[in-house]
């Protein structure tokens, strides 16, 4: 579930070192910084891409840690030294701000998650999601609706479609969206709700992009944490996420962005 850090860290550090050498003699030196970023598991792949682009631009180094948003929140409340938090929801960054663990006013929406109904079998999920009504399946995988935003959105969509009661006995719950994906990819669950970004990466099987009218938008918010308050690289990365370039990368992975 949690992917290892990119192997290119040393190379990036060397690049950063080169940057220091190149700019070191200037009157206002651009100092290379190392900043730790906690990322919600669903955003793993785009976060790596964004971090690489940011590092190339600035020479700063980002150390990415991936986990479920709920776990990251629990870790931060216990003093984890992350500077930036990219959550899979809006509630947790707000909660951290209220607890005084995030910098007030630093919270913004970096991506809007989109839900897809997916099966590893080609042709299993039709273009209108009718398969949920006809119900020829034994297991429907979702992320934990208590702790994972995509799980909560899946339950909302099932209720909006009026099939929740019918499929409830068939629900199997992954700890996060990546595990729900695993249940489906391994064939143990015939279908399930995952992030559209995951479906776009794989491109196999069959999928239905759930209309956004069926669930509350999955606002994924970022926050500058107290540990990163005086960290220019952390602020620079958050600013970078709001540039047109970064927003185009994010949309390329199947997320929406706020206007």
């Amino acid at each position, binding site marked *: 579930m949690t992917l290892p850090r990119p192997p290119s860290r040393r190379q990036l550090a060397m690049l950063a070192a080169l940057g220091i050498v190149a700019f070191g003699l200037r009157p206002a030196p651009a100092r290379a910084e190392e900043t730790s970023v906690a990322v919600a598991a669903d955003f793993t792949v785009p976060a790596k891409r964004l971090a690489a682009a940011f590092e190339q631009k600035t020479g700063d180094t980002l150390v990415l840690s991936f986990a479920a948003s709920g776990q990251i929140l629990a870790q931060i409340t216990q003093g984890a030294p992350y500077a930036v938090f990219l959550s899979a929801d809006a509630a947790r960054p707000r909660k951290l701000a209220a607890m005084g663990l995030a910098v007030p006013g630093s919270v913004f929406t970096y991506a809007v998650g989109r839900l897809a109904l997916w099966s590893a079998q080609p042709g299993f999920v039709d273009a209108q999601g009718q398969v949920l009504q006809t119900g020829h399946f034994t297991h429907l995988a979702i992320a934990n609706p208590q702790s994972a935003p995509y799980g909560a959105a899946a339950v909302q969509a099932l209720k909006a479609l009026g099939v929740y009661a019918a499929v409830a006995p068939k629900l199997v719950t992954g700890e996060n969206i990546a595990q729900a994906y*695993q249940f489906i990819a391994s064939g*143990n669950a015939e279908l399930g709700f995952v992030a559209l970004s995951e479906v776009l990466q794989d491109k196999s099987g069959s999928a239905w992009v759930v209309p956004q009218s069926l669930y509350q938008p999955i606002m994924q918010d970022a926050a500058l944490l107290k540990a990163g308050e005086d960290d220019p690289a952390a602020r620079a990365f958050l600013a970078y996420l709001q540039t047109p370039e970064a927003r185009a990368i994010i949309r390329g992975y199947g997320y929406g962005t706020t206007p």
Partner: protein
Amino acid sequence: MPAAIPLTLELAGLSTALLLLLGVPLAWGLARGRGWWVEALGAVIALPLVLPPTVLGFYLLILLGPHGPLAPLLALAGLHTLAFSFTGLVIGSVVCSLPFMVQPVRSAFAAIGSAPWEAALTLRAAPWDAFVFVILPLARGGIVTGAILSFAHTLGEFGMVLMLGGDIPGKTEVLSIVIFNDVETLRWPEAGALAAGMAVFSFGVILVTLRAEARMARLRA
């Protein structure tokens, strides 16, 4: 949550019973066997000690699934997969706890040596009788230890269940998963109460069994 407590006890009890049936003969084979295969088999059985439970869970998810080697058997039984079922968790628990049963029993058999076994056979005991009435009582300490360890380990098993179970209340939502979900959703008082209860219960089970064992040993002496 209330359903998780009897469910967890049932899983641990059933797994321990199956492990006794499976682990004791395996340990006997390992203790008595000679040849390269003994250590190879011992190493395979010990693997769950060192592999992360999530890895075991992931392999089991593939193995017990509709594309695994058991799929034809499952289809005969009219099942799509053994994942997300109590049966699947029992199989997973047996695999994960196998070294906790086999190692102590194997050590006990080895400590007995071959003399009692050979003496029993010389006195014309049938091999089955010699095993049941001579060897098993002598190895009782190791067997009890193995059973306690297996029971306690299954009680707290988390990674495998997380990967294989699908968190279905009453079927696969065991105590460790309930505690994890409570922590994830910041219900820390509930998580703390359950975790403390589990620790106290495990301590109690181990203490009572160890005391009973010590009393038996004194009576025998």
